[in-house]
């Protein structure tokens, strides 16, 4: 049996769903294949979307036309703006979501999508001809032909789950691993390596004594991820519960380290440093006598409670013991034990910024297969892979976002340039241009790109442009109109808790005062449309632009200084191994990464500024030679 599609997407996790939706919405006949169609966009680990730097990416994804933000808004059980007391660039939106509803909603969207078909099955291998991919082969031997193929297999390739010394094949509880694909890639010459991740136990809500924990509620004010979502909760909001490990917990863990696959050398994959298991925390930070844990409800429809912070792969009998030493959990019933999972990933230095693999044409990789961790990291890669596979099918150039343009740009550039040794998670500190990559200015940064990509419906696109224009109009007006010191003005200023004016100032300068915000302006005589002044979509971002003007300017200066390097493209066929002025290490690294731009070359660790000078010299020589050759040709 043979099928023909424009684009085939393997895997229906967060990456696969965004990839297949993007591709289908861009008008390409798309097939989404998964081993388990009941778990579309399943949340295998924590029940939340967003967080610091991750929330930024969800907003970017939303503006570009992705689905994750909308789904999270609709299924939000608890909302929090993290770092709300800190500067606007490092505030991040996080939503606890209802896992069941989230997955079901995504499944509905996928099934209702025009141009998109779904198929349950396991992909055994790629259909290759030379260095080009023409589709996939399923377990029953049937072939699905496609122009482009996107692999988003998450933690499933050659996956092994560990609980104590017990090992089971599988990428998630109850779901077997997939075999064939990564072996084929390795045989083709790809560098395929192992990573490890873990998940905590799931407990039954009815068996927990919540009186021994501290209730934690979310924020009252809701700032949805998606542009256009209503600023109102769709679901009933629920609390989480805080508890802590005790001396006893640590004692039991320490006593049973000899039963931990992590400490007995059974697990060889590298786990994330920012998400260590509880046994890791107890061993590495001996001076800490207690670690906090949040009890988080997974869904309104089930009794599952996620035990955040207590990921473990100790044997069940040990988990039974130590979990019950945590206050509130004395009589707890386990719904599922914690486990670690080891899986194959493809070293991401082997892919282009477009997410297409270097060795095999028309093959794209997205999500955990590229060594990342997290739903958001996966989703944005899925979106970019979907957009770029579509671009390939319709002979357009790929979308590559810059590091000063979006966190998505930082993520992909980091992966492609530096590779990764542990599951890669986004942090705000990874973005050197952090001050201009804010949640509030996502529209300003990406509305044009979104229009180019064409995933966003026309009406929504116009609304985005409208918001952007309203913002710049307001900003301009704030600079133009002036406030004069008269009796009434001074009185009003004092009432607000501000100080009197010594001379006339622009409203923009007035807004720079920390105690002044947009809501005060009307009362102080600022003449502008009321609805715009009170629209948080507009005034939030304008206020921030004004108050952080100095820093933003300096950041933009730095971006400008780097621009020349970011724009200087390096020839793809450059022979680094014979290039003068480079150390052996620099030659080897440049040759492996094959940077797209001079800026990227400089970001490769171990490539020093002197090497960049050498590259500049080489490029100059090359242009000069080409000019000479050109001249001699015309002469002859």
């Amino acid at each position, binding site marked *: 049996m043979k099928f023909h599609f424009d684009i085939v997407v393997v895997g229906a996790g967060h990456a696969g769903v965004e990839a297949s939706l993007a591709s289908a919405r861009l008008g390409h006949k798309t097939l989404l294949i998964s081993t388990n169609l009941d778990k579309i966009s399943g949340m295998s680990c924590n029940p939340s979307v967003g967080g610091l730097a991750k929330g930024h990416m969800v907003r970017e994804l939303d503006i570009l036309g992705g689905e994750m933000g909308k789904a999270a808004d609709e299924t939000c059980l608890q909302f929090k703006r993290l770092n709300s007391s*800190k500067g606007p660039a490092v505030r991040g939106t996080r939503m606890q979501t209802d896992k069941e509803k989230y997955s079901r909603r995504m499944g509905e969207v996928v099934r209702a999508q025009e141009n998109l078909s779904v198929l349950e099955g396991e992909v055994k291998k790629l259909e290759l001809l030379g260095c080009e991919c023409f589709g996939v082969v399923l377990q029953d031997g049937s072939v699905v032909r496609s122009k482009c193929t996107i692999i988003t297999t998450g933690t499933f390739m050659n996956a092994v789950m560990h609980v104590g010394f017990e090992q089971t094949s599988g990428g998630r509880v109850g779901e077997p691993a997939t075999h064939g694909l990564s072996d084929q890639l390795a045989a083709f010459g790809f560098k395929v390596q192992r990573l490890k991740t873990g998940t905590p136990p799931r407990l039954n809500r009815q068996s927990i004594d919540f009186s021994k924990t501290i209730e934690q509620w979310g924020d009252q004010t809701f700032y949805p991820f998606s542009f256009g979502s209503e600023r109102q909760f769709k679901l009933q909001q629920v609390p989480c519960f805080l508890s802590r490990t005790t001396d006893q917990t640590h004692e039991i863990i320490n006593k049973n380290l000899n039963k931990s696959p992590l400490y007995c050398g059974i697990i060889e994959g590298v786990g994330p440093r920012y998400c*260590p298991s509880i046994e890791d925390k107890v061993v590495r930070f001996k001076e800490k006598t207690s670690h906090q844990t949040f009890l988080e409800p997974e869904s309104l429809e089930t009794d599952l409670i996620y035990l955040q912070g207590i990921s473990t792969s100790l044997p069940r009998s040990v988990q039974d013991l130590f979990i019950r030493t945590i206050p509130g959990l004395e009589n707890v019933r386990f719904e599922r034990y914690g486990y670690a999972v080891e899986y194959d990933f493809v070293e991401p230095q082997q892919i282009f910024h477009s997410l297409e693999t270097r060795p095999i044409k028309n093959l794209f990789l997205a999500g955990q297969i590229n060594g990342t961790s997290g739903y958001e990291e996966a989703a944005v890669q899925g979106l970019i892979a979907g957009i770029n596979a579509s671009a390939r099918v319709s002979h357009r150039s790929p979308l590559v976002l810059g590091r000063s343009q979006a966190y998505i740009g930082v993520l992909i550039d980091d992966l492609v340039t530096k590779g990764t040794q542990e599951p890669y998670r986004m942090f705000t500190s990874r973005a050197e241009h*952090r001050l201009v990559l804010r949640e509030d200015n996502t529209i300003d940064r990406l509305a044009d790109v979104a229009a180019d990509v064409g995933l966003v419906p026309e009406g929504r696109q116009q609304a985005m442009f409208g918001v952007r224009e309203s913002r710049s109009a307001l900003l301009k007006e704030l600079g133009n109109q002036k406030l004069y010191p008269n009796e009434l003005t001074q009185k009003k200023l004092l009432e607000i808790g501000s100080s009197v004016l010594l001379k006339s100032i622009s409203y923009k300068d007035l807004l720079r005062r920390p105690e002044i915000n947009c809501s005060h302006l009307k009362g102080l005589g600022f003449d502008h449309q009321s609805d715009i002044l009170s629209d948080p979509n507009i005034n939030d971002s304008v206020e921030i632009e004004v108050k952080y003007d100095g820093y933003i300017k300096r950041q933009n200066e730095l971006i400008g200084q780097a621009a020349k390097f970011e724009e200087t493209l390096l020839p793809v066929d450059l022979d680094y191994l014979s290039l003068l002025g480079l150390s052996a290490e620099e030659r080897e690294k440049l040759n492996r990464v094959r940077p797209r731009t001079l800026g990227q070359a400089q*970001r*490769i660790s*171990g490539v020093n500024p*002197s090497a960049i000078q050498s590259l500049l010299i080489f490029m*100059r020589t090359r242009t000069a030679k080409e000019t000479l050759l050109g001249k001699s040709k015309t002469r002859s």
Partner: protein
Amino acid sequence: MNWLRDHSQDTICAQSTASGEGAIAVVRVSGPKALVVTRSLAAFLPEFPESHKIYFGYLKSRSNQDLDQVLVSYFKQGHSFTGEETLEINCHGSAALVNQVLAELIYFGARAADRGEFTFRAFMNGKIDLVQAESVLALIQSQSLEMAFEAGRQLKGGLSVKLEEIEKNVLFCLAHLEANIDFSEENIQSISPTDLARKGFDIAHEIRALVTSFERGNILAGGCQVAIVGMPNAGKSSLFNLLAREERAIVTEVPGTTRDSIEFKFNLGGRLVSFIDTAGIRQAAETIEKKGIEKTFLWIDRAHLIFYVVDSGLGLQEGDLEILKKIDLSKVILIFNKSDLIADHQLFADQMLCWLEISGIDSKLLLKPGFLLTSALNESDLNVIEQWLTSTLVQKTGQEPTIVQRRHFELLVQALEKIEMACTKIIEGESPEISAFFLYESLSSIHQIQGKSVTDDVLDRIFKEFCIGK
């Protein structure tokens, strides 16, 4: 986090004649703002000077003091060595004066050129042909090799060690700020803002010490002076040439060839050292040589260290002993040169030291180990001397390294400014990403001195320092 900067549009300046004392020094200013910057000092230049024309007048400092009477040549863009708008200032050759002129140019918006930067720009602007490109590459390569080499041989307390320490401390502060941002939900124990600011001010203090070392070490003192002294034809000039790695002094078989003192300066592990080749000491026949010998005695008094060179073939002579009796031995090391002429080095050295004792010269006063053996001919001799010198300098000048390059000085001033800014923001209670922003700028300046690209050091530090995990 990593900031890459394009410096190619900066206006740069440097002395383009060899450093050291000479009659005339040429300071070159090149870049888009070359004329504007130079005119700030040389007000006598017309607003639109003619290319390839020389102008005469007084340079004035920012406080309107006369600096020097100078000749300034103007080269318009496209018609200079670098291909950029260039001015060349011919001033008198005192090192202090040149330094002051450079300081003024930098004050008015130029920056000190990196080594080889004029040549690099000339190439990038197509002013040097393709064949020459390779030599530019070699230059850059040798520079980085030299840096690596220097870094490798820096003893404890050297400049690179100091910079690494500063870098480490800045990273510590950044790790605490960043942990407070990216892991604010993790209930981590980061240090208080007050302690963080205190740490920051400590770093600022360290950087300031380096900044002042430049003023002290370079402008005023001119580094450590090492006089090469000895009888005529002992091989002083050959040794000098070896140290200078080029033929600066004229070497002949005729004793008394060096009539005047010659000086050569270089940077030894972050310390400025100048060698002075002196005229050989003897009862001279003619007046010119006599004058030279008088000068030698001046140098013996002034120098911080003395290499007393002895021809091993002849051994210590009466003349040597007479001179050594007059010198402060605590700054002398004997160099037994032409040691290839003797068979048993140990026996020879023992004999020589014994002779000193007999003559009433306490050889224990000499700088340890008292003597070095050289042939003044090869690299291994050079290594022996430089290693000895480095360790002696560390003992003599203490552990404090000295900034000798103006470009480094300038970058340190920037680093200092930014770190003080960061501390102020911390104290004012500003959000951590703002303080971090200034710290990254500071770190970027330090990295430029180190010639290093940035890695994910901050995240590594956070994971080492804090217990993190959802």
